[in-house]
């Protein structure tokens, strides 16, 4: 991990308010694992003060991409950047997905912008292992499937795919999926919570990428605690995560 002044190669609005930002960095491209994140300074002044964390979305040659939503002031500033602009990027940070563990079939579960870390993960999952993806959103306008393959959709209002949430959809479909399964999930905490409750009960290994407020992103501020499952203390989302095995923490 280091801090690099990168150049923006491209920035595209892939969906209303959702942007795909690409930067060039040999070092980052060579050292990043799916599920890791970068802490980006969106301005060169005090506003906003803190860096903003974004999961790596994809790596292609020496191009790194991030998929982000315009949420508040920081992402608004980011969305207005232009190709050629400088970008101060710190990473790669945290621990990514473990895609080489002992499973036969990968299942991707993404809520909303939770798809962000998966294009890169999908590239890394060994080609002989089938992948099934489940993506959910409130409605069809908010469905993002950028870079995801073999996908089943759900929307809360039924405007696309299954009507209901993505965990229900997965429950309905799981019997069609064979082999020793491993779930990789990212999305809102409520989604992760209901997913993990269920996968724990039926014993499917699950890795989740967790979000929370962060200041430093690399373990010096203690600002991003998440409770250990045994309640003996806290792990740090930025350093011990953001990807956790669902058994490690209380989500």
């Amino acid at each position, binding site marked *: *991990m*280091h801090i690099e002044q990168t150049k923006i190669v491209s920035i595209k609005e892939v969906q209303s308010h959702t942007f795909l930002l690409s930067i060039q960095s040999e070092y980052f491209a060579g050292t990043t694992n799916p599920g890791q994140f970068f802490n980006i300074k969106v301005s060169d002044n005090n506003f906003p003060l803190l860096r903003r964390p974004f999961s790596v979305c994809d790596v292609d040659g020496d191009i790194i991409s991030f998929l982000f939503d315009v949420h508040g002031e920081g992402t608004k500033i980011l969305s207005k950047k232009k190709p050629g602009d400088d970008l101060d990027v710190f990473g790669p940070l945290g621990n990514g997905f473990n895609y080489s563990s002992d499973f036969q079939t990968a299942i991707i579960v993404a809520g909303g912008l939770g798809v962000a870390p998966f294009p890169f993960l999908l590239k890394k999952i060994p080609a002989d292992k089938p992948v099934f993806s489940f993506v959910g959103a409130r409605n069809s306008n908010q469905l993002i499937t950028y870079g995801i393959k073999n996908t089943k959709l759900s929307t809360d209002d039924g405007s696309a795919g299954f009507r209901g949430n993505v965990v229900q959809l997965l429950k309905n479909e799981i019997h069609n999926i064979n082999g020793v399964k491993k779930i990789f999930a990212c999305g809102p905490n409520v989604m992760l919570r209901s997913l993990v409750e269920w996968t724990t009960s039926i014993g499917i290994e699950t890795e989740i990428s967790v979000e929370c407020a*962060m200041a430093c992103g690399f373990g010096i*501020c*203690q*600002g991003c605690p998440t409770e250990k499952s045994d309640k003996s203390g806290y792990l740090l989302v930025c350093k011990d995560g953001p990807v956790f095995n669902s058994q490690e923490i209380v989500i």
Partner: protein
Amino acid sequence: MKELAVKIKDVEFKNPVLLASGTVGYGDEIARFCDLNQIGGIVTKSLSLRPRKGNPPQRIVETASGMLNAIGLANVGVDEFVKNKLPNLAKYDTKVICNIAASSPEEYVECTRILTTEKEIDGFEINVSCPNVKDGGLEFGNNIDAVKRVTSGVRNVTDKLLIVKLSPNVARISDFARAVKESGGDAVSAINTLVGTAIDIYTRRPKLFNITGGLSGPAIKPVALAKVLEIKRNVDIPVIGIGGITTWQDIIEFMIAGASCIQLGTINFISPDFGSGVIPDLLNFCNENKIENISHLTGSVLLP
């Protein structure tokens, strides 16, 4: 680089740049970015007698040019620090100041007694001013007699550099600096964070689990600077200036106001390389302005 050396009591800091307590842990992670050999010193995260888990999330809220934190003094405890953290810090050619936070005057003294025998420790910073714990912290920081009791108690068990870190959440900080001096303290650090809060308008809950937190960052710089100046104008004791420093100019400004050294806090989260990166700028300023030793800046403010 003798131009930058600064002495407080018998401790010679290579330069006036220290890293502030709670913003660099025990030096492990920050050392990848900030060359600890290049800076004056590092102040540890506040240590207590036993380990502390700290507060449940949410511990952090960003604000305009600042941030609130309510970490709750999460720390490994004195024993674990000596066993597993100090040896690593000792590898660097820099001064190590242990910051101590406790729930009672006795605990402050006990922590210091244990730590003072470690030769790698150059001094202590007594945190009587953390706004984020129920027991200890602010209660001491707001009470002159408690500050006196803690200072003289700790003084009794250590000959090393003894700094007391003051709370800005008081009417007259210089009264506390005077109390520290009278009780045998060698220096004061100013300031710790300001008490602040933030509320989610939809859930109507405080954003921080702890309800209030400590405000740090550029937002508080003018307040910190006024506190340093107030102490300097009223009490003859070395001051370590802290609060919102993000540029070399800020460091010079704090020294002119009265600081002997300064500490970098929140900036480490954004630019972890700032600590060592800023040293050449300080040197440059001294050279350009024909300042033989940077300590000549201390308190050199010209008042009407």
